């Protein structure tokens, strides 16, 4: 029979029937149900298995604090493990499965662990599995890992997307129960910019779960009216299905809005969840309270639930966990559960009230001063054993037991900046302390105002205080105002296998053992027993464990301590924190001006930071990248090649102190550089290490264009701003990046001038005399397009770099290719670029690795001692100038066929091969088509004095040992005749 446990009333839409599956069995439900309420309605109590003993588990709660009722939701690549049935909003076709059981939920093989619980006590694994040592990885651990874990991932990429967003408000109200709604009404009517967020899909909090009246109507109706009024206010934003997960610095809150989890499938382009960063001026925590259980023998059977949860299921979801229900309570609130269920026609087996003076009820039996001594029922509760006041035992038959041990304020967010809650004796509970996150205040049950009236009132007051509103309180609806005092009752004396943390299987016995072994601080207790470490983060278990530890230590609870809560309030999918920054969108992609052209040419691209650069340009018939790269190098050195070098950083440095500024930035001199000239510059960090290198072209008396390496463009700009704003604030120098403004191409090779002459407008003389090596100028090309020309060379050939506005970069590259046909011009990529710079002995990223000094690079003399430049002083420390320091060298194999391994280490020609005899290492290596052998650059101890020495290059990692010769790093044209041609 379907939905056999349905009751009358409730806030579900009975006109629509939805079908869903649990463990492949079909059931029906209604809109407004959660998976949990729907399962109960269909008389399903057994939902999962516990972590350690694989004990049968049902629902404990009706909310996000649920430790037991966790399932695998959805199927295929949308499978979602460990999802709380109590927070899953029902939709048509929902599919869920129980988890952590094999072969089936009813017959779980690992339930055998329960039989051995005596051996598997807290921390047993620290004391054994040690012999023999190797068995840990091979035997013990794999066993443990297979048994452990809860749900499983699909192991596939989730097709659904998440978003991130940013919202701002004057007042963020967290929780839309009586306090939150009243606060929102108060603030909203006053015109404040308000956000009201609640984790539930129905706003109203406990008002939707209780049977009592507000004014003369149902509490839920009042909530609905309040929500209606609020949604009509333009200055109030309602955010249902939104959990505020954390209180971060300076009034920033993280919130997760579940925009699509309640839908069978997402509309195109819409996110499943949104992570909101909410910037608040003030915030008001109205998170309510969580009922706490009572520990007694075998208190973990399916059907044993929090009394307030039974009430929520009955009043809001119109369902009961069973037809015969008993209630165990230590306070009046628990009695409401019996009354409400009775009113809905559920048989009350009895109310077991631990208080000798508990109020009598005429509709059903109240057992005063009684306690539950044990329970029975293999896969669900069937009998409760009651120890009566007179000591006799009575057995009650019932399918559900509602337990109420009082309430704990939900102080979680008040602890997120490590503030500590304080103990309140009247409530016998922790309430928010005084060291709250700045801007946050607390109202309602979260602040200890337990009655409905108290919550409404403190909500209104809280809003007025937060916004500094004058005037009198708004009218509050008439509501119950029961006294809030609670007498604590944590556990039934003498119980042992009484569960505190039901998911992790932590019992009273474990806490006692923890105390016995000296793990007595709360932190030690948690870590040793795993109490409160489960997916519910101990929302229903921490207090019980703490109370028992306090009793064992003979201290009060506050003396014993409190565990503070960390974000997130409830677990958050990793995808939600990532939003759209994944896959190809993980980082932005930077394209060069010639990218589209290069793509047409079939170029192979490579990541360089966020840039995509052409690595080489294969021609039809070329089957190996080396063919293409060798051809590009040979053709460039033989005639002319073109390479897009836009990615190099370009910084415009202007001002009357521009030259003096560069004199500080670079370790070599710039003051005397003539206008129209370019100079190589070496930039040190303050600690004397090389930071970057590049060129500075002096376009005018007070105007330089500085180039940086691609990798350091951003950090060099930041460094320059630091130097001009901090240590030297009165230098007249202005900076701006122009990297993206100009498309810049290197044109290299003996025919580079001839090619350029075809596009440079005739009034500009670029002959060797008119435009010598290291010249620079503003020119025009192709009949009047403004451009910049630099005669600099990275390849060692006669070479130029030409820059035009980026939008014309594509056209210029195409023009260069057509004009260059007569010279058989080639485009070349980063590989050929790299080969040519190694042939020329130019240091690059692999050499400028942040641990090399000018001395190591053989440029020690460049560091001027005649001026103040960043890094010059510390570069003189003894440790950086020792005899035998590493120096950059060239490396050639003795056997032409041998390949140089970048990352290989250099050893003497004979003798041991180990760290003690390490002489240096190879930084860069390539095949040189020019020398027709492999070559490398590297750092070698006292390398300057070892040219011609034979050594061994070893790379045990790749099983390489070859004989090499140490040579000059300048393999090609050491005198630099070509680039001056």
């Amino acid at each position, binding site marked *: 029979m379907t939905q056999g446990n349905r009751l009358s009333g409730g806030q579900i839409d009975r006109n629509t029937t939805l079908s869903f599956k649990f463990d492949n069995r079909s059931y029906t439900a209604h809109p407004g149900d959660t998976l949990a309420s729907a399962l109960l309605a269909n008389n399903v109590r057994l939902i999962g298995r516990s972590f350690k003993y694989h004990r049968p588990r049902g629902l404990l709660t009706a909310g996000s604090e649920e430790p037991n009722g966790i399932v695998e939701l959805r199927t295929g690549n949308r499978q979602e493990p460990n999802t709380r049935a109590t927070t899953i909003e029902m939709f048509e076709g929902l599919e869920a499965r129980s988890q952590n059981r094999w072969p089936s939920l009813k017959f779980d093989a690992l339930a055998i662990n329960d039989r051995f619980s005596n051996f598997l006590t807290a921390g047993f694994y620290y004391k054994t599995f040690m012999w023999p040592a190797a068995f840990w990885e091979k035997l013990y651990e794999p066993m443990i890992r297979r048994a452990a874990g809860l749900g499983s991932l699909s192991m596939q990429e989730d097709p659904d997307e998440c*978003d*991130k*967003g*940013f*919202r*701002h408000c004057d007042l963020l109200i967290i929780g839309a129960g009586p306090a939150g709604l009243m606060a929102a009404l108060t603030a909203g009517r006053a015109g404040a910019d308000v956000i009201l967020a609640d984790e539930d899909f129905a706003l109203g909090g406990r008002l939707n779960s209780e049977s009592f009246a507000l004014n003369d109507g149902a509490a839920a109706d009042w909530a609905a009216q309040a929500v209606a009024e609020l949604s009509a206010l333009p200055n109030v934003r309602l955010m249902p299905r939104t959990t505020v997960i954390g209180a971060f610095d300076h009034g920033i809150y993280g919130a997760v809005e579940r925009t699509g989890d309640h839908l069978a499938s997402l509309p*195109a*382009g*819409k*996110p499943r969840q*949104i992570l909101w*960063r909410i*910037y608040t001026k003030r915030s008001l925590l109205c998170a309510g309270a969580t009922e706490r259980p009572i520990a007694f023998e075998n208190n973990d059977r399916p059907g044993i639930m929090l009394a307030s949860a039974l009430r929520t299921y009955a009043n809001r979801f119109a369902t009961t966990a069973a037809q015969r229900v008993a209630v165990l309570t230590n306070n009046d609130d628990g009695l409401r559960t019996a009354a409400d269920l009775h009113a809905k026609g559920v048989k009350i087996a009895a109310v077991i009230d631990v208080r000798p003076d508990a109020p009598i009820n005429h509709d059903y039996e109240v057992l005063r001063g009684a306690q539950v001594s044990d329970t029975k029922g293999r896969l669900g509760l069937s009998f409760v054993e009651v120890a009566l006041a007179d000591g006799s035992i009575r057995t009650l038959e019932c399918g559900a037991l509602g337990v109420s041990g009082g309430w704990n304020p939900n102080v979680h967010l008040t602890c997120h900046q490590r503030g500590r809650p304080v103990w309140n004796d009247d409530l016998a509970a922790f309430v928010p302390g005084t060291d709250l996150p700045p801007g946050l205040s607390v109202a309602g049950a979260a602040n200890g105002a337990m009655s409905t009236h108290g919550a409404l009132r403190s909500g209104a007051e809280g809003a007025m205080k937060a916004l500094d509103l004058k005037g009198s309180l708004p009218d509050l609806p008439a509501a119950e105002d029961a006294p809030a005092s609670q007498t604590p009752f944590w556990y039934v004396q003498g119980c042992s296998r009484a569960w505190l943390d039901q998911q992790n299987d932590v019992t009273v016995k474990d806490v006692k053992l923890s105390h016995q072994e000296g793990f007595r601080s709360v932190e030690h207790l948690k870590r040793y027993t795993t109490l409160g470490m489960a997916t519910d983060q101990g929302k229903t278990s921490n207090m019980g464990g703490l109370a028992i530890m306090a009793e064992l230590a003979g201290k009060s609870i506050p003396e014993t301590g409190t565990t503070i809560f960390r974000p997130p309030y409830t677990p958050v999918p990793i995808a939600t924190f990532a939003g*759209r*920054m994944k896959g190809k*969108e993980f*980082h*932005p*992609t*930077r*394209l*060069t001006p010639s*990218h*589209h052209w290069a793509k047409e040419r079939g170029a192979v691209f490579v990541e360089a930071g*966020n*840039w995509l650069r052409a690595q080489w340009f294969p021609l039809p018939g070329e089957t190996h990248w080396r063919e293409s790269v060798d051809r590009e190098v040979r053709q460039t050195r033989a005639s002319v090649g073109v390479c897009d070098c*836009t990615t190099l950083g370009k910084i*415009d440095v*202007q*001002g*009357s*102190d521009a030259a003096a500024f560069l004199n500080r930035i670079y370790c070599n001199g710039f003051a005397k550089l003539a206008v129209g000239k370019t100079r190589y510059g070496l930039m040190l960090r303050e600690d004397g290490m090389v930071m970057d290198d590049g060129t500075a072209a002096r376009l005018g008396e*007070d*105007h330089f264009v500085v180039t940086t390496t691609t990798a350091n463009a951003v950090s060099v700009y930041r460094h320059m701003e630091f130097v001009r704003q901090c240590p030297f604030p*009165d230098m*007249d120098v*202005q900076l*701006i*990046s*122009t*990297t*993206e*403004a*100009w498309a810049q191409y290197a044109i290299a090779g003996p025919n580079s001038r001839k090619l350029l002459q075809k596009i440079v407008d005739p009034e500009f003389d670029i002959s060797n005399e008119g435009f010598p090596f290291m010249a620079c100028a503003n020119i*025009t*090309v*192709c*009949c*009047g*397009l*403004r451009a910049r020309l630099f005669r600099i060379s990275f390849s060692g050939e006669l070479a130029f770099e030409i820059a*035009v*506005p*980026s*939008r*014309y970069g*594509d*056209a*210029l590259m195409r*023009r260069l290719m057509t004009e260059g046909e007569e010279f058989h011009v080639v485009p070349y990529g980063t590989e050929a670029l790299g080969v040519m710079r190694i042939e020329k002995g130019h240091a690059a990223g692999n050499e400028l690795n942040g641990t090399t000094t000018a001395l190591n690079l053989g440029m020690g003399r460049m560091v001027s001692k005649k001026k103040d430049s960043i890094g010059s002083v510390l570069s003189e420390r003894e440790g950086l100038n020792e005899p035998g320091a590493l120096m950059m060298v060239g490396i050639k194999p003795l056997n032409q066929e041998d390949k140089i391994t970048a990352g290989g280490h250099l050893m003497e020609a004979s003798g041991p091969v180990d760290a003690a005899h390490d002489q240096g290492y190879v930084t860069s290596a390539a095949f040189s088509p020019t020398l027709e052998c492999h070559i490398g650059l590297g750092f070698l101890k006292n390398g300057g004095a070892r040219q011609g020495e034979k050594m061994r290059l070893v790379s045990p990692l790749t099983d390489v040992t070859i004989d090499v010769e140490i040579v000059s790093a300048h393999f090609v044209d050491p005198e630099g005749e070509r680039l001056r041609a």
Partner: protein
Amino acid sequence: MHDLVAITALGGTDPQVDSVGTVTCSEVPGVALASVAVRLGKEQEATAALAELTGAPAPGVGRFESKQIASIWIGPDQWLVEAPFETHENLADQAKAATGNAASVSEQTDAWARFDLIGSGVLAVLELLCPLDTRRMVEGDVARTSIHHLGCFILCRASEQFSVYGPRSSAGSLHHAIVTAMKSAL
């Protein structure tokens, strides 16, 4: 006049336009830009020259003016000037001529890609993109912020009319982020 054909930041010969619901995102290539940075101690001269050039007083912190030539505050003593490309391709030269030694001027035209976001609901798109409270921005407000790890300027041209300037080389990523947000929010 040269005969090189320009392409837009997104790589087309014509600007790209995308509409989702009530909001339109248009690539706007037809602007010339130059930065004008005041030389030390030349604040009066420079701002006066800038006013002369643009026909409006140099805007203050976080503001921009748009007369015949727009001027946009981008940092202490620093502005971007913005004008139609076809009439002001050499805007940097004009700005330099106008300010002389009172300011440092740099070509910025192709350093940036501009997208105009127009239509009701645009605020819902922007709140998925940047941490600024764009609901509070009024005509003439400008701020630089970060969109999907990209430093961008956001200008409020009028109610529900915004311009976004992002780095030209990342125009594709920026465009993808904007259109994705439009599909999500609208």
